[in-house]
């Protein structure tokens, strides 16, 4: 077990170092794709930290992400950029805690619908506020380069992996697996199920908000319909499910192929993207219910079955 952990940490560090070299290739298109992959990797991995073990499907990613972008958009006029990332994290975490307190006692479809509605609610509030103040959008003008955004996302990604790894080894991680299997058993075994779920939801909300804050300078012009697009929430769910949520590295395995697929779809079928996103979602759920992680595991099992 120890040897395996050392190996995994070594592999992760090497991959991270390799990924960090991407901007030095000077290939602008590769860097653009790199930023997109890093962004979705962070979002999908942090989403899976909560939704993987608990099986609660959250569609609130866009709400947290949008709050992060607006934190940078509004805050940049008054505060230095670096202070905005922790502020975005705190705002995202607080919103997640409030939503968690209100909804995590609900389960199944009620939770899904509430989280979907949340992004829309926050968007409408900001739109209303902007209409009241007569301000339509926000300009985020900084000297942060695409490479700078990319490295920040990699750093955040490393932090998410470290957090996920530590949670997986902790009592909290074990509690979440029990909750995912049978919430009633969890409660009657002495687990404070609401607290455990809220803690993880806060982590995933804070990470999504920080991601939004990091991405804001890339968009330059921010408006609510862009920052809170529900498409983002769905894409994160699809990518995480494609990769599989049973392992920490699962979502990453889904993000990379899906980003390329999505690029191809957006270029070739620009007006049918939503339709094709839905088709992808159905195909993944039917063909790969446990994602690539599940596929690898069943192949491994079948192989060991043949040889034993």
């Amino acid at each position: 077990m120890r040897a395996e952990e050392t190996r995994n940490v070594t592999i992760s560090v090497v991959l991270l170092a390799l990924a960090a070299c991407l901007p030095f290739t000077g290939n602008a298109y590769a860097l653009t794709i790199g930023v997109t992959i890093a962004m979705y990797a962070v979002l999908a991995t942090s989403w899976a930290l909560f939704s993987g073990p608990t099986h609660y499907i959250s569609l609130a990613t866009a709400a947290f992400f949008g709050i992060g972008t607006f934190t940078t958009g509004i805050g940049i006029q008054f505060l230095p950029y670096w202070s905005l990332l922790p502020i975005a994290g705190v705002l995202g975490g607080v919103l997640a805690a409030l939503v968690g307190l209100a909804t995590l006692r609900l389960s199944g479809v009620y939770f899904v619908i509430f989280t979907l509605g949340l992004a829309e609610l926050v968007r409408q509030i900001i739109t209303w506020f902007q209409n009241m103040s007569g301000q339509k959008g926000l300009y985020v003008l900084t000297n942060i380069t695409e490479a700078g955004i990319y490295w920040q996302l990699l750093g955040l990604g490393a932090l998410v992996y470290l957090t996920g790894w530590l949670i997986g080894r902790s009592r909290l991680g074990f509690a979440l697996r029990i909750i995912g299997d049978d919430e009633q058993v969890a409660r009657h075994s002495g687990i404070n199920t609401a607290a455990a779920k809220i803690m993880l939801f806060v982590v995933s909300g804070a990470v999504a908000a920080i991601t939004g804050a990091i991405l804001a300078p890339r968009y330059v012009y921010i408006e609510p319909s862009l920052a809170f697009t529900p498409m983002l929430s769905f894409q994160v769910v699809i990518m995480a499910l494609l990769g599989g949520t049973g392992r920490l590295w699962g979502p990453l395995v889904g993000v990379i192929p899906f980003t390329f697929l999505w690029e191809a779809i957006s270029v070739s079928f620009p007006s049918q993207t939503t339709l094709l996103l839905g088709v992808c979602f159905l195909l993944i759920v039917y063909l790969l219910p446990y994602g690539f992680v599940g596929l690898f595991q069943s192949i491994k099992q079948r192989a060991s079955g043949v040889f034993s």
Partner: protein
Amino acid sequence: MISGTPVLSLRNTTKKFGGLVAVNELDFDVTEHQVMGLIGPNGSGKSTTLNLISGALRLTSGSISLRGNPIEHLPAQAIARRGVARTFQLVRLLPSMNVLENVKAGAVFGHRRRWGAEADHFARQVLARVGMAHQANAPISQLTYIDTKRVELARLLASEPEVLLLDEWLAGLNPTELEEGIKLIQDLRAEGRTIILVEHVMDAIRALCDVCVVMSSGVKIAQGTPEAVLSDPEVVRAYLGDEHA
């Protein structure tokens, strides 16, 4: 074995579902090292009583206390942590985990909390205690029915509870398994555990219980040794017309 300090006390415990009174002013004490049988026809409120004690349901009125401290206001997880461990009418295990991890769930989060190697070691000890040591790494899906029951019992024992609540734990077993099951609970009784059994199997009640509380339509109609209550005319009347008569 009848004497001793009360571990669990119910006073005027009442549960209403709308107009239906499922449990009506129920009073009883379970004392240290006692095995109490909670019996009665179907729908008499036995399982509801277990749900009230374990915090799965809230009482309408009355009180429940554990070693003199009221617990009726606490959420289920807090009651579990204070040492009330329960099984469910249909066996509930954690399907994505192996046998050892299922038992560890009790050791890690229960009444006495352990972690890491200590939790592992203790869970193995408890597994050996219920005769499942050799299956520690088996997936749940490969277990026989009686073995799933053993694992569920081991999860409870691993939390080192003050009281065990077994909800029809012997139901659905074939005659051979039933014998093994009764033997297992007899061993727990010999260890001096405090247990409340909801049970329909009369042989098991006679073999295991120090005292029985008989319920009918939510009301306690008799209390005493198994021999005494099972020959009580009112108890016989309650059961007659029922499938278990």
